[in-house]
């Protein structure tokens, strides 16, 4: 009688524990599934950004083939484990790490591209801010473009915003008709540094000032230097 009772108890306990384990593993699976969804959404945004940077020719393709393979493997592993209801933290972590790799590569590509893309506009805005119709706006644009060099956009709308600022800056600079002339640029740099002398007022510079109605925007300050 005792042995029967023991056997019966063991069976009931075992069945109950199995049910409980199943419930716990489903809970764990769903928790990992939610993590995977979040990681996946973030990776998707990052991939969109990569595509957009290349599509707009802001950057040349910069994801190495080996990284592409790593991401593909991580996605496949997550897909298989999701299918088998065996998704675990390790698979999600592998995809997360692939996503971080994409971010690091994108950040580097962005910084290199933005340095080249925005430097000229930033420099021109800085040296000619006193000549532009809206110095306040010019200053803000220069700051925004400068910040963008070190802070990559997090989304496509981020790229849109900064590119719009670049277009606006270029429009303002165009009004000066500098046309990338190194002599004019050098003159403006000297003026900004308060280093311009009468010698810098070459016929070309004087013509440029007259033609763009800028003569009245300059004041001469006389001082003799040894």
């Amino acid at each position: 009688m005792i042995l029967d009772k023991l056997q019966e108890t063991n069976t009931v306990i075992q069945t109950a524990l199995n049910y409980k384990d199943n419930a716990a593993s489903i809970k764990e699976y769903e928790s990992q599934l939610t993590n995977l969804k979040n990681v996946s959404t973030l990776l998707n945004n990052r991939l969109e950004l990569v595509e957009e940077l290349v599509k707009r020719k802001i950057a040349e393709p910069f994801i190495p083939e080996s990284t592409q393979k790593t991401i593909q493997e991580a996605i496949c592993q997550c897909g298989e484990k999701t299918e088998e209801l065996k998704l675990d933290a390790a698979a999600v972590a592998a995809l997360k790490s692939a996503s971080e790799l994409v971010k690091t590569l994108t950040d580097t590509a962005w910084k290199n591209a933005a340095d080249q893309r925005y430097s000229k506009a930033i420099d021109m805005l800085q040296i000619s801010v006193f000549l532009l119709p809206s110095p306040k706006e010019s200053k803000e644009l220069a700051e925004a473009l400068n910040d963008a060099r070190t802070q990559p956009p997090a989304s496509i709308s981020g790229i849109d915003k900064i590119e719009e600022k670049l277009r606006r800056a270029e429009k303002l600079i165009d009004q000066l008709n500098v046309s990338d002339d190194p002599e004019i640029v050098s003159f403006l740099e000297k003026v900004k540094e308060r280093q311009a002398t009468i010698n810098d007022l070459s016929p070309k510079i004087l013509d440029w000032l007259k033609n763009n109605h800028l003569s009245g925007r300059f004041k001469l300050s006389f001082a003799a230097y040894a």
Partner: protein
Amino acid sequence: MLKSRFDQLPEEQAKRAIKLYNVLKTNQAKEEDISLLESYARRPNEELSKIVGDLETVMKIADNMKQKYGRGGKEQIAVNTELVNEVKNMLKEQLTRVTNLEVVK
């Protein structure tokens, strides 16, 4: 209190019950009255009844657990198929996106 009573592993409880059962069986086979009295004085019978009582309590708990987590139980969790499908589709699209990426060879 119940927890401390069932802290032992089921195998240990089983071994203990079988041991007590054997003690009873052996002693009942003895003919000497004095030995019988001696063995019953150690009260294996009461102990066994207590164990049987405990086992019934364990069974009740296990039965409750089975009902709670088992098919149709209130704690039973079905896999959220909507979430599973959503994630599967996301991964599928993502794989296509990654495969179509322009890469540096």
